[in-house]
């Protein structure tokens, strides 16, 4: 019996198309509910996915499994100073962390600041950071050209530097910078290499607007303080994501020991888990995506109820037609299929238009506001499948009601 129903499907689709054409305005308005629902889901999920992908990329560009050790507050004579107000970390701390902490893969101390740099008749203001060759490993940052400075350069405080792409663009244009000499705070430095492009940081800073020099050179020639051998921060790369908390613990213990901090005293430094912070942000955007999608789904649900409403009206209006069909030999499922297919036609056409609307909304949003949006195939398939489900779900009840009509009552219905 189902088989004979199957044969009827092409004709039934034709019948339902005709029924929908009769009330064009009504069909269009009913579809609008689904169009808005599907469009909203796709656009919202695209915005959310775009945001979390952007953050994921930023995390990757920052370097993975990253800890940062910063100077903490110190107290002198009972007065607690602000965090970072006193340099408490030294190059020695940095070397000790690498040597003593088993969970640590690489370290990179930093000491730098903003300054003016000059090449020929051009000048540029940027951040110059003194560090060690470990920086390129800690931040997963390969060179685009040239070669990195070495541990030997650090030891002998040579005047060499690595340039970020933004600095190269501003000082050299299309010229090859390698081997050229630039002046930082009037000290000549030889350019050894150019860093590959990293793009924006999580805070929206241009990560390529940077110059790396050996940390010792920075201490002696550029940003030296009255405390020799001090550095501003130490960046640490743990061996793996699982090692992050162990590394944090090991570093804390080691530095407390090195800084002679007693049991009850506060540390004069803090260790921050950057990766964890970023992952928390990524998670919150994922929750956000889910939330946006859920809110948009409500409109899809409302659209589905709209379909049900129209189908119920349609069943009432066409009671006589149902009676004629029954008198001629339409069985229960013939009638049900007719109305289910009609509802399905409404919801699927609405779904397809909704997908187009959703994708274009996402594209318009990203071109106007500059948000990264990602329309995934999965969200399209899901939206389409869901609108089909809505058609069947909300079409079934009216179809069921229609199939229950008594033939003679339906035939006599005025």
């Amino acid at each position, binding site marked *: 019996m189902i*088989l004979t129903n199957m*044969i009827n499907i092409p004709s039934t689709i034709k019948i339902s198309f005709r029924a929908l054409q009769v009330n064009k305005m009504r069909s269009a308005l009913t579809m609008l509910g689904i169009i808005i629902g599907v469009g909203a889901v796709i656009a919202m999920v695209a915005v959310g996915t775009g945001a979390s992908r952007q953050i994921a990329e930023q995390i990757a560009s920052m370097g993975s499994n990253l800890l940062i050790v910063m100077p903490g507050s110190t107290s002198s004579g009972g007065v607690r100073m602000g965090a970072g107000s006193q340099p408490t970390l030294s190059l020695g701390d940095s070397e000790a962390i690498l040597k003593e902490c088993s969970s640590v893969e690489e370290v990179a101390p930093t000491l730098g600041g903003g300054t003016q740099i000059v090449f020929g008749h051009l000048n540029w203001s940027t951040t110059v950071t003194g560090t060690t060759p470990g920086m390129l490993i800690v931040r997963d940052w390969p060179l685009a050209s040239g070669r990195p400075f070495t541990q030997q350069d650090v030891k002998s405080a040579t005047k060499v530097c690595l340039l970020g792409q933004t600095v190269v663009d501003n000082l050299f244009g299309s010229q090859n910078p390698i081997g050229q000499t630039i002046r930082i705070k009037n000290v000549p430095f030889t350019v050894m290499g150019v860093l590959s492009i990293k793009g924006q940081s999580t805070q929206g800073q241009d990560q390529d607007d940077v110059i790396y020099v050996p940390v010792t050179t920075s201490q002696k020639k550029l940003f030296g303080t009255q405390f020799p051998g001090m550095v501003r921060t130490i960046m640490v790369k743990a061996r793996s994501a699982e090692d992050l908390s162990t590394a944090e613990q090991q570093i804390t213990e080691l530095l407390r020991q090195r800084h002679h901090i007693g049991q009850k005293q506060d540390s004069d430094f803090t260790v921050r888990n950057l990766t964890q912070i970023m992952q928390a942000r990524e998670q919150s955007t994922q929750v956000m995506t889910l939330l946006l999608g859920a809110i948009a789904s409500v409109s899809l649900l409302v659209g589905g109820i709209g379909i049900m409403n129209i189908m119920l009206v349609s069943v009432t209006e066409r009671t*006589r037609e149902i009676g004629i069909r029954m*008198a001629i030999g*339409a*069985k*229960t499922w013939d009638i049900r299929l007719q109305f289910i297919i009609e509802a399905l036609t409404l919801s699927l056409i609405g779904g397809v238009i909704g997908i187009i609307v959703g994708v274009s909304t996402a594209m318009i949003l990203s071109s106007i506001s500059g948000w990264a949006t990602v329309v995934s195939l999965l969200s399209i398939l899901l939206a389409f499948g869901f609108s089909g489900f809505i058609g069947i779900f909300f079409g079934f009840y009216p179809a069921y009601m229609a199939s229950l009509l008594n033939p003679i009552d339906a035939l006599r219905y005025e």
Partner: protein
Amino acid sequence: MSLIEVREISKTYHLGDIDLDVLKSVTTTIDQGEFVAVMGPSGSGKSTFMNILGCLDQPSNGAYLLEGVDVGSLSRDYLAEIRNKKIGFVFQGFNLLSRTSAIENVELPLLYDGIHARERHERARMALKNVGLEGREDHRPNQLSGGQQQRVAIARALVNEVPIILADEPTGNLDTKTSIEIMELFVKLNLDSHLTVILVTHEPDIAAYSKRIIKFIDGRIVSDECGEDKNIDRFINS
């Protein structure tokens, strides 16, 4: 075995507190190839009788045997199948689907019989040709005259090669000339194809085409007469 046998069927409608007995213990048989007119004033139960014969309605009591099978025990879908394969309906108001072409209306019974599109189309075309509507296949009901619409309805009733035609006041909405045409079509079908025709009418002129007249008054059969067979003469003379 008779084609149609009804045994003491009755039908009671419950309208609020009042019970309305529309049919009261009706018993009769109709054989294959008969041409029967069911007459009676309005409210006499003749239409209810027809609806029960057409499996559109069920009697409250009694048994209806169609080709020896008790219809009362059958499921909805089985009844639908009987209506599809055994009975062709012709209504006073034509009951064609509007906004649907003549040929698609005629195809409907075949559609519900699970017949493929090509055969459906071919058979519907033939059925329309048999009622003299060749070339009107794609006209919609509102583009056809009353007589033509009733012909489409007859084609639809016949297309699945049913043995029984049930016509409820088939000429009620038609003028005299068209009524004669339609009745002659029924006579021809009855003679040529040995089709059982049962028609409900209150017009003696129309009933005169039949070989047997069953009269209903107040829910009972009051007379059941076989007249002399005028149809053959009429047919030969014409």
